[in-house]
């Protein structure tokens, strides 16, 4: 299973004031706050931790179907500049991040070896609807190319708990994927089940 998150750093600086009293304490553990406050680029560390938590949370929702809002409970551990672990409810999620001066793109995964495809791209329009549509279209195109089927037969539908799923000719597929967009950036992450060209053609329970 895979989850992802993208943060447009310039837009985040305008939209969210993490220095607002109470903000850090609602989101980060004491240890995380210490790392943030001692780092050279505090904003970057805030959004790196945030994206790690968010990407890991997106796997948790796929696993458990439960939506909650408690980022503080997801504990970040940094292994290197761009690799980390997120601990939550007894699960351990590995994360990797692409960190630039403009954006942070993080993906989290459960399995030690995943056949993952990660893509982060710029979107010229920051309107939510345009972004969401653009990200989904890119994801479908990618699915159709890799699975060698027509885009017409593929569809993304969201489950009740807001988890998007891939459908092929009306049948839900088991491949795990995650879509994110923020500001002027969109991203997706797909974890393919092997063999990639196999399709499920029965209702999933």
């Amino acid at each position, binding site marked *: 299973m895979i989850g992802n998150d993208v943060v447009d750093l310039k837009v985040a600086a305008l939209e969210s004031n993490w220095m607002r009293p109470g903000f850090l304490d*609602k989101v980060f553990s004491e240890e995380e706050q210490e790392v943030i406050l001692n780092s050279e680029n505090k904003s970057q560390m805030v959004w790196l931790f945030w994206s790690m938590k968010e990407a890991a949370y997106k796997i948790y929702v796929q696993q458990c179907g439960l939506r909650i*809002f408690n980022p503080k409970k997801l504990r970040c551990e940094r292994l290197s500049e761009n690799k980390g672990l997120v601990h939550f409810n007894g699960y351990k999620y590995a994360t990797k991040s692409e960190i630039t001066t403009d954006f942070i793109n993080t993906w989290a995964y459960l399995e030690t070896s995943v056949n993952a495809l990660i893509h982060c791209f710029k979107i010229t329009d920051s309107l939510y609807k345009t972004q969401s549509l653009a990200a989904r279209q890119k994801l479908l195109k990618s699915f159709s190319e890799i699975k060698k089927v027509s885009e017409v037969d593929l569809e993304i539908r969201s489950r009740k708990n*807001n988890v998007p799923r891939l459908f092929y000719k009306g049948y839900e597929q088991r491949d795990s994927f995650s879509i994110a967009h923020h500001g002027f950036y969109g991203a997706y992450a797909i974890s393919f089940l092997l063999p990639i060209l196999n399709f499920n053609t029965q209702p999933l329970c």
Partner: protein
Amino acid sequence: MEKEVLIAQLKTIVQPYIQDEEAFNNLSENTDFVKDLKINSANLVDVILDVEEVFDIFIENADMEKMISVKAAMDIINEKLAAK
């Protein structure tokens, strides 16, 4: 607090963060902050902090955890106000 009054106050609080006008105009008890109003999750922290300021209450993380809809937020605000 009266339901309509509370919903109106919450509506004012969430307005700066919403990304779906239509869902905002139709805001009701059943509205979901993320799924319907498309509030980004970092701004959901701002919503919680604004709620704390406006109602002069403190929301522990265990309560915040449930605050993903208008209804859940109303329940927690009422609970905190009653305990004051």
